[in-house]
């Protein structure tokens, strides 16, 4: 059987490598990675792949939509969303943040293992993204609290523990998060400088 030709649209090289590895482990396929938005539709049309994989959050997805329109009555539609063959699979892809365009005529049983592998990778990326965002937010909050503590310590000549107790008490009184109170102190101090 001819290897399935896949275009993967992915800007981050590490992600592209991971996905390619997962796809190649599942099926005999040729993967072309496109990392830029420029001339996307034209480049895909030139490659004429069986399958296009793109992150659902990538705004360039809309440029692919034009490929679904046949340019002349003799053309077959270049790309079509996968759902028509397998709704559950599409739902799983969408939940994982993956969009897949499958060219008409590619049989469902050939697509499934590839998409399953891609979906698993995308789930992993989503988890990593969520974790990274949470870690960043926690770090930012801790920075604010530290800064507010130092402001209180200098302004009132108190120790670190006492400054933290003040922040906590104020947060409880105002029914707000400690980091919110800290942020308010930082902003107010900046304004009063």
């Amino acid at each position: 059987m001819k290897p399935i030709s896949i275009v993967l649209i992915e800007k981050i090289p590490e992600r592209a490598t991971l996905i390619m590895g997962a796809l190649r482990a599942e099926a005999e396929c040729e993967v072309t990675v496109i990392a830029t938005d420029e001339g996307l539709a034209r480049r895909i049309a030139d490659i004429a792949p069986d399958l296009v994989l793109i992150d659902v959050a990538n705004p360039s997805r809309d440029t692919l939509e034009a490929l679904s329109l046949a340019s002349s009555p003799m053309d077959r539609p270049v790309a079509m969303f996968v759902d028509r063959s397998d709704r559950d699979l599409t739902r799983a892809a969408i939940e994982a943040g993956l969009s897949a365009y499958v060219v008409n005529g590619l049989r469902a049983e050939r697509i499934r293992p590839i998409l399953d592998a891609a979906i698993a990778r995308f789930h992993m990326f989503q988890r990593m993204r969520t974790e990274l965002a949470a870690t960043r937010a926690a770090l930012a909050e801790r920075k604010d609290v530290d800064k507010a503590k130092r402001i209180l310590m200098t302004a009132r000549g108190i120790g670190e523990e006492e400054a933290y107790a003040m922040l906590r008490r104020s947060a409880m009184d105002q029914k707000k998060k400690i980091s919110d109170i800290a942020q308010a102190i930082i902003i107010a101090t900046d304004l009063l400088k």
Partner: protein
Amino acid sequence: MSLLPVTAGFLPLIDAAPLIVAHELRFAEEEGLSLSLRRSTSWSALRDLLAFGQVDAASILSPIPIAGALGLGGGAAPLDALMVTSLGGEAIAFSGRMAHHLEGIDLHDLTAMRGALDMPLRIGVPFPFSIHAELIYCWLGEGATVETVPPSLLPDAMAAGELDMFIVGEPWASGAVERGIASLLLPGTAIWRAPPDKVLAMRHDRAEDDPELTGRLMRTVWRACRWLRLRENRITASEIMARSPYLDLPADLIEKAMEGGIEFFEGCATFPWRSQAEWIGARLAARNRLDVTAARIGARAVFRSDLYRQHLGPAGADLPAASSRIEGAVSEPGLHPASAGRVILLPDGFFDGSVFDPDLP
């Protein structure tokens, strides 16, 4: 009363105002809804989220549900347009080179402009199924070549010298002028004075099977549209929309874009005219070599003026006597027959004075 949860999707554009206002100003709670919003980065992604039930409703380009009914594009489930949520709100941006080329031409004379633009042009549109693309074809003819570039990337494409002009929902066109990328703006309403740009869409089966939720959501969005008709409220709305979960852009840029060329409510703006859908459906069909008569029938069924009458009539919305009209025939604001009394309709003329009569083949 426990609130009914509902999720609606949008793209960061000024025409998302009705949904954002409905959420932020608690119009949803008044109707017993707990409305959460989900921002999307592309129209195809938002359409798929809607089709697969990840969102219950969406503020979406009016031709998308129609294209789906015609079997065009990658739509996965039939969608209904429950009401129109914005008329206009698009702008055409010209590159510096094109602005120079158009020097000396009366920019109010679109026929003269069209003559000057009779040359190979690279024109960017945000989506193949958009009122933006239809306006370009309507103005420059079916021979115009357009390419799809997502709204947020259109200014960059022009900056890179890839586009001569583009049409996009505001504030992306004004933003491109402010950044010095584009030099000239023409509002979309110069081509058609009342183009139905966005609709509130739901999956067809959902809108049919859950009239309670559908009615509540329609009333919520309709009240938000009514609130947005006042200029001073639009200033407040601009401040809210500027925040990071929504447009994440400077409030003054949004406010300026909200001042002109977009209508949310007046003149029965929210009414989904079957004839608007037919106009879009007929054009899509002709360009894609589909049967135009069948397409018009399919398209008109998508704009649910019946649900509009059912759910918004009792809430006090103006109801025109007919659900179809001759598009482009209203030249002055005026009174027209309604189900009860009369309604005011705003001008909806086309630049060349043409009309679209849904009763003619």
